[in-house]
């Protein structure tokens, strides 16, 4: 018999220890913390969940984080991204979308920071219409473009700088914007025990 079993044993025990420390203990602790907290995030509506799926499928995650750090770590607060995130901000998130890149700004509180739906639609249609230095990709395929001197449809938005060009958001685009509107994780945290008082 050769000595392979030593490495089988060693490998199994280190990975088990790792599961213990990184999967099981944090679960217990986080669920304990969340038990006494009211989430700053409200449960998502059906449309918001559809928008969330669009967010995933179009890779917003790879450029935008949804986790705000303490001022010790960075200028997050100074940039207007809100207070530091808490575990209870994410209890309705599945899959989680914390993200680890900031090619674009954090979106934890985009719903309060930029409440204009029209702004978001134009920005998705072509970010450089509104923000000249942007390197965010446009999503023109979410929109239909119409030429008309008057609004061709309720919900159509005139392209800035053009008198007769309009974009008409698809349902997908509307849902995506609804999802962004739902992100308002800058509400102050409340404890469940105090909120009921």
């Amino acid at each position: 018999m050769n000595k392979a079993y030593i490495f089988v044993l060693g490998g199994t025990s280190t990975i088990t220890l790792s599961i213990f420390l990184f999967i099981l203990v944090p679960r217990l602790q986080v669920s304990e913390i969340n038990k006494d907290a009211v989430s700053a995030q409200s449960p998502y509506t059906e449309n918001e969940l559809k928008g969330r799926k669009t967010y995933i499928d179009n890779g917003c995650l790879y450029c935008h984080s949804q986790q705000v750090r303490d001022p010790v770590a960075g200028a997050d607060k100074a940039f207007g991204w809100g207070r530091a995130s808490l575990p209870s901000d994410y209890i309705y998130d599945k899959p989680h979308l914390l993200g680890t890149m900031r090619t674009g700004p954090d979106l934890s509180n985009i719903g309060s920071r930029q409440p204009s739906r029209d702004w978001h639609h134009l920005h998705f249609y072509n970010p450089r219409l509104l923000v000249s230095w942007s390197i965010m990709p446009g999503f023109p395929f979410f929109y239909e473009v119409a030429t008309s001197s008057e609004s061709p449809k309720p919900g159509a938005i005139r392209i800035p700088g053009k008198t007769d060009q309009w974009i008409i958001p698809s349902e997908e685009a509307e849902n995506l914007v609804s999802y962004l509107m739902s992100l308002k994780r800058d509400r102050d945290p409340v404890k469940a025990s105090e909120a009921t008082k």
Partner: protein
Amino acid sequence: MSKGGTVDAKVVFLILTFSISVLGMLAFVVALIQKQVLVPASAAKSIFGKNEVGHSELDAKSRMSDQWKTLDQSAKIPILLFMVSSVLWLVLGSIFGLLVSFKFHAPEFLGSEALLTFGKLRPLHLNIIAYGWLSPAALGVAMWLVPRMTKVPLQNVKTLFAAGVIWNIGVILGCVGLLFGLNDGLEWLEFWWPFKILLALAGAMVAIPLFRTIYLSKEEHLYVSMWYIIAALIWFPVLFIIANSHFLHSGVEQAIANWWFAHNVLGLWVTPLGLGIVYYLLPKIIGHPIASYQLSLFGFWGLALFYSQVGMHHLLGGPIPTWLGNLSVVMSVGMAIPVITTAINHHVSAYRHFHVLNESVVLRFIVFGAMSYTVSSLQGSLHSLRTFNYTTHFTHWTVSHAHLGLYGFTTMVLFGGIYYALPRLVGRNFKHPRLLNLHFWVAATGIIIYAVGLGYGGWLQGKELQNVNGSFEQSVRLTMPYLVVRSFGGTLMLLSHCLMLYNVFSILRPEKEAVIK
């Protein structure tokens, strides 16, 4: 803790996993006391055949290679399948990588097609690289090395072939699925879960024959590369299954599980396989045993202990328990121990026989890889420190580190491994060895430009993201030149992969003379 049945189940799990790990540690200590782990220095020579020490095994058609021929070709077809398909994936994956890179500084480029948007190509790049290139290529080389070290021909060759087919089908379906919205939404785990079951199945169909081969081995001592391969084959399935059990996780807990996986797929899968290949090929090619066999023990056990507990350095500053982040920081710094011992071992061996680099292109790949391992790991320990991480987190610095690790280290080592194995699998030498050399220099230049350029840009970006009087706009503007530099380095890398594709296909084509005879 006593309220409710669910909590009780959790407590049982806790006690169970904790006891298993403590038992495992105990077993290790016992093995240590019985001197089953401390190894004779002669074991370092077990990879050399009769009269081989002192000679470099360079020519695949020499008498030296002949002694290994039956073992080398015991599973020729499945190994070729793994290697050749992985090279094809590499070319495709890096085309996507380059397109993504262009989109960073030319956001309108291919921007009006829904299927070619940044957010579709970026996960395609990562998943093709991780599951199309790195994993099957590393498995292919490992499958080729195992018979050499166990002295047993590979078992269940047909199963291995079927595994290669299923694995590739899994990756193809996974990629097509991503384009059409079948996306699990977790970084490093984007493939839709039914397709990941195919990958798990294929993985098991590789692991079981390998374990059978190992079980049949009569070798008194298994060479150090085998330790890494055995451990990796245990670790990866556990990681993959737990991280993909979506019913287990949501919210912050899922983020923790996600990055626990994403780190461990690097630390406990790609890295050990890469190191195993270095530990075999480096001494083999220079013709002398590794500098200190005892030291390699520290390298292995240190990696097993420390690297399995560093995952949360990906979420420092995030909404996770503080102790968990701190644990990962401590362990990340601890990683310096196995990294430095491994580095001494590799670099001293290479330094003593530096002249062989003139003769062997494969050795160039391996030595470059070993050096990148040292550099990227020490960089990793550094940017795990909280103060440092607060600057570099969320920036292109991390992407630069990722490529230095996965390209400079793993990919270069795999290039070497494939170039070493192929001639011995097909029994012919490369017709144009110079093209291998060209591949090396183009790839090495490309990755150096990529890593240094983007790393510096990422540092500037990070400083700006910490500047309370600064602006986000400035952080984007500052990085622009370095994003262009990245595309330049990436173009060189892609070119080198095309060269590799040519090299691989040219050696597969039978020589004309052979056909006439």
